[in-house]
């Protein structure tokens, strides 16, 4: 096709969209609704994932050793655990370090409570531990099981429950999200194909004439494909705008109403979210527009 033909298709697609505005409006509305739901769920999923990632960086496993374990045995254990693929990093925390940290965490500003404990006397002298960070929160369980089976390990402390709750929440949202999106996409495709069918119907005579003058399939179909694509693109602008402008407001609202979440859930900033949403919505919008219109054209426009 030549460049001017693309111009022709664009011009006629726009015209047809305008002439057909009632149906077009309905289709744009559904696509907007569809993409809004997609955007909304995506935003939630992305944020939960973000929180999880942050959690993973903070949730580690603490491994405590049996009493009287030797430095060599600790080193052997270290080698074994570091060799596991789940392990991101491993830090040895000596009894002294543990005591220093405990003093800081528990007794800061109340050092007078510690007067009974002499300097060389470490109450945590058997509490040396490995602080292990894992690569993926899903691997926590298997790693824990492995470490527990090792000789010399007294206790493994993990943050499994938090991880499981967050993880479960996330996959629940993902399932609902997928089902909703599929339903809405189907409705959008159906509405667009109907809109295009009406457009084709109203230009039947013109199309007939085009065909016997020698118009190619592409030339006849072009304007309708453009119309479908335009519906898809316009349909994706609205939800993006809504999400962009309401994102910060909603977060503020959540923090205000559920102060408890402030430390639990971390929100990405709006720029990061929109950056991911724009291509996603565009691809889905354009895809729906294209599939919807070509479906109709294959059925109703046999040249």
């Amino acid at each position: 096709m030549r460049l001017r033909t693309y111009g022709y298709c664009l011009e006629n697609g726009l015209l047809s969209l305008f002439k057909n505005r009632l149906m077009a409006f309905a289709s744009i509305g559904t696509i907007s609704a569809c993409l809004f739901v997609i955007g909304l769920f995506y935003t939630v999923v992305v944020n939960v994932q973000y929180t999880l990632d942050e959690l993973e960086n903070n949730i580690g496993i603490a491994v405590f050793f049996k009493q009287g374990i030797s430095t060599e045995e600790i080193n052997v254990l270290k080698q074994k655990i570091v060799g596991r693929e789940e392990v991101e990093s491993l830090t040895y925390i000596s009894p002294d370090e543990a005591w220093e940290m405990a003093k800081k965490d528990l007794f800061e500003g109340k050092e007078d409570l510690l007067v009974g404990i002499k300097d060389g006397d470490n109450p945590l002298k058997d509490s040396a531990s490995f602080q292990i960070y894992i690569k993926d929160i899903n691997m926590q369980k298997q790693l824990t099981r492995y470490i527990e089976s090792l000789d010399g390990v007294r206790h493994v402390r993990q943050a499994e429950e938090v991880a499981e709750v967050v993880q479960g929440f996330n996959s629940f949202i993902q399932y609902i999200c997928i089902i909703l999106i599929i339903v809405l996409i189907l409705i959008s495709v159906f509405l667009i194909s109907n809109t295009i069918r009406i457009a084709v119907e109203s230009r039947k005579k013109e199309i007939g004439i085009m065909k016997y003058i020698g118009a190619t399939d592409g030339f006849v179909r072009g304007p309708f494909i453009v119309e479908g694509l335009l519906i898809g693109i316009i349909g994706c602008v609205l939800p993006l705008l809504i999400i962009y402008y309401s994102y910060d407001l909603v977060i503020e609202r959540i923090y205000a109403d559920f102060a408890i979440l402030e430390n639990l859930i971390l929100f990405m900033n709006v720029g990061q979210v929109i950056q991911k949403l724009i291509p996603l919505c565009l691809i889905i919008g354009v895809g729906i527009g294209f599939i919807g219109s070509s479906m109709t054209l294959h059925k109703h426009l046999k040249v």
Partner: protein
Amino acid sequence: MIALENITKTYSNQVTALNQVSFKINKGEFVFIVGNSGSGKTTLIKLLMKEIEPSQGNLYIDSKNITKLKRRHIPKLRRNLGVVFQDFRLLDKMSVYDNIAFALKVTESSSRKIRRTVPMVLSMVGLADKARMYPKQLSGGEQQRVALARALVNNPPILLADEPTGNLDPSTSWDIMKLIQDINLRGTTAVVVTHDKEIVNTMKKRVITLNNGCIVKDMDRGDYGDET
């Protein structure tokens, strides 16, 4: 230019519209195709445009077997055929000029070519002063001229006319027929399907007479015949 070899067309309702029809039309010829309604004239036009497929036989246009033509090559075939119909088939929402320019846009001509060609074709059919009018403002004869101009604007070697004077009064019919004859004299092969006895008998061109899907007569300088 056009050759039919034992063309048979049976529609899905078992009606045989054409039965073992063979003929040849040479380049630059002027041929009338006559016959009663239901004799297969319209089927013939549709076959030539590859709107429908023959059930049997071969059809050559410009020595290409169009029965074997792939779908995506049909537009190219149709650009070699200018077609006019009894009901003109103009687009009412477009001016005369735009109706003709539309045919050039469809074939992806440059806007320079459109600006140059349309007035030329319009003056050829004698409508240079009506370019800005709309089909509904024109008489039947004028509308058929616009249709002719549209058919010719892409310079097709063959002109197919399916009852071009069917909706026109006798004197306008003559104008249109003379115009087609002029076009033919410039080298375009003309195939005219018609009912108009007077025109056929007066013009003394080759006449192919169809009856019940068979050729019953094919005469140079022929007439409409009385047996039909």
